């Protein structure tokens, strides 16, 4: 026996657009994340080069990945909310 949903959800017409957006954003971030790993494995010396503010590329790239994740998340939320407002009728929007 399976339990039903923990919460009741209405139909979401924006779901496919949001899913596509999520995949695109995931690929963008993955590209930069993989870039860090690839540089580390194949061009290690590059990570030790001074990049800015006296910090090496490794420090800049690492902190950049953290900040970039937050910024992408905020943009994702903004776009998803806009899709929901555009595509869901007032009764169907999932906003409580």
């Amino acid at each position, binding site marked *: 026996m399976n339990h039903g949903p923990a919460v009741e959800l209405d139909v*979401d017409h924006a779901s496919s657009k949001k899913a596509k957006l999520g995949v695109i954003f995931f690929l963008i971030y993955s590209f930069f994340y993989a870039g860090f790993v690839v540089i580390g494995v194949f061009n290690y010396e590059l990570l030790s080069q001074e990049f800015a503010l006296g910090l090496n590329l490794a420090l800049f790239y690492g902190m950049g990945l953290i900040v970039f994740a937050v910024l992408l998340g905020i943009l994702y939320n903004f776009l998803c909310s806009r899709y929901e407002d555009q595509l869901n009728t007032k009764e169907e929007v999932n906003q409580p």
Partner: protein
Amino acid sequence: MIYEISYQALIFFVLFVAFVLWLSFYFARKTKSASSYYAAGGQIHWAVNGVAFAGDYLSAASFLGICGMIATVGYDGFLYSIGFLAGWIVALFLIAEPLKRLGKYTFTDALNANFKSRAITLTAAISTLIVSMFYLIPQMVGAGDLVTPLLGLPHWVGVVLVGIVVIVIVASAGMTSTTYVQFIKGGLLIVLSTVLTVYILKNGLSLKPNHEGQNYHEFVTIPAQVSNGKVTQAEGWQVVSQQEVKEKTYVKLSQNNVGRWFSLSDKDGQAVLTEALSIEEGANGTKLYNGEPAVNGKFYQVGHMNKIMLDGKEVESTGALSPTKYLSTVEKSEITRFSKVSFKDGDTNVDLFVQNVTPGKNFMLPGLKYKIGKGASVWSKMDFISLMLALFLGTASLPHILIRYYTVKSQRDARKSTILAIAAIGAFYVLTLFMGVGAAVNGVMDVESSNMAAPLLAKAFGVMLFSVISAVAFATILGTVSGLIIASSGAIAHDLIENYFKINLDEAKKVRAGKIAAFAVGALAIALGIAFKGMNVSFLVGWAFSVAASANLPAILFLLFWKKTTAKGISASIIVGVATSLLIILTSPTMWGRYGLDPATALHQLDNPAIISFPLAVITVWLVSLAAKPKTIVISA
């Protein structure tokens, strides 16, 4: 390390734990049905849930483990910060919303939403249990480490203490209480880390990291006479014995009937002996710390700058520094770390912690633990890639993180919760770099365990800060362990007993079964927490991420994004992911060392399994789904 009990810290600690317990009992009165026990009835506000997300995620591994690993191996510890945060991208962009729409209580239900397969029920529940257990181990290890300086108690007492408190919380309350506990704890952790970082920057860097009430030990260097490779004389000391380990020479000297160990090196053509820390355990079990009994308190906290270069000039101290100036100054200077060497001297087991001067340039780059530059092998490069892969893919696969997706009303709220969590966690992870580096150079490191770097750093800046941070760290562990035990008990009581074995229970019995399961999981976690004493908790969490990523993520991703996915494919993928990752971990060099064997003789040299186990699980779900007759499924993503 030898610690004395801190009564101020103890009082605050007891008050804080009492508050957490009161909170749990208060909310327990509102928990009546199974739905409110498992997922708080979907009624938690998104902002509370977001900070609670952060509270869940910023576990002992983040606060204790990452700071400790940065303090001991520099940038390689920061890799965990980068990877742990990046993992949220997978969770948010790929998993969060579709999974929320499936709207099930547990990970197993979510995977099984469209199949009603008993095989999935069984394999997913087992996966949840194993991942939770892997994640529980580091929390318990951290708990033990935490109480040692806080209460002056042995490691195992801390583990048992946390286990009992959490079992009481979970068995008496449920998700509602832990959500609010996590909310308070997550918020406090971020605020206190900020305060600690401000202290670090204000304090700057100094060759002599003395703090109020805590003077740094003056390490001595002694000129020596060497003949035919043997140390024959050392100024003012008697030579007792000499050992060669991995082409390095260690010498035991004696003065006033106290034996001390030194490492031999060459300085400008002159042989010199540099003081090390030592723990000697005789055949009769007696332990000497730096040649003296523990009560003499001659075993020191360590870690200091060997040379400070500020704006091209060598200085003794810097004064307050900006965040970027702090990091760039460390990068251009030299740090003295303490590396462990173990050997036998006659019938005495000796653990030495020898001074290891490391250029800041190397400290601020990957490579001290995960070798990818000079001296790297194919194995070490694979290990690095494997770690980064596991951290990236593991977050979304953790059962105790997934369960929070169900605790808010709508997808929009779940999304906002997640983004708030990412922002809070991201800010915290940037601070781990400062706390870790700060601990490395402020003479606070416990050479026996890296996990206490951040709290001990706080102690150097003031007992009050230490007591508050310790209390929050303890609550961190309480909260995380609670979440994990809830996920585990859910897997046993709900997925296995109710769904797999088809035992029909009424509401009261369901909750009771969950509580009994929580007790059993908690007891096992206590035992494993004691067994894994001394290991860095972030490293252990890396394993949990590897198992989670391999076992759960391929199944979830294929379920959500590939319509031909079958129940057989999902269950086969979970089995392959769990089995291969477990096999690789259990035969890894680190576990080899744990078994008392030489890590160099392990079956392979891979400590992190994801690079093999994750692709295997992906191939499995794909091939088995293709081979099996697909059922028509509809995913309302």
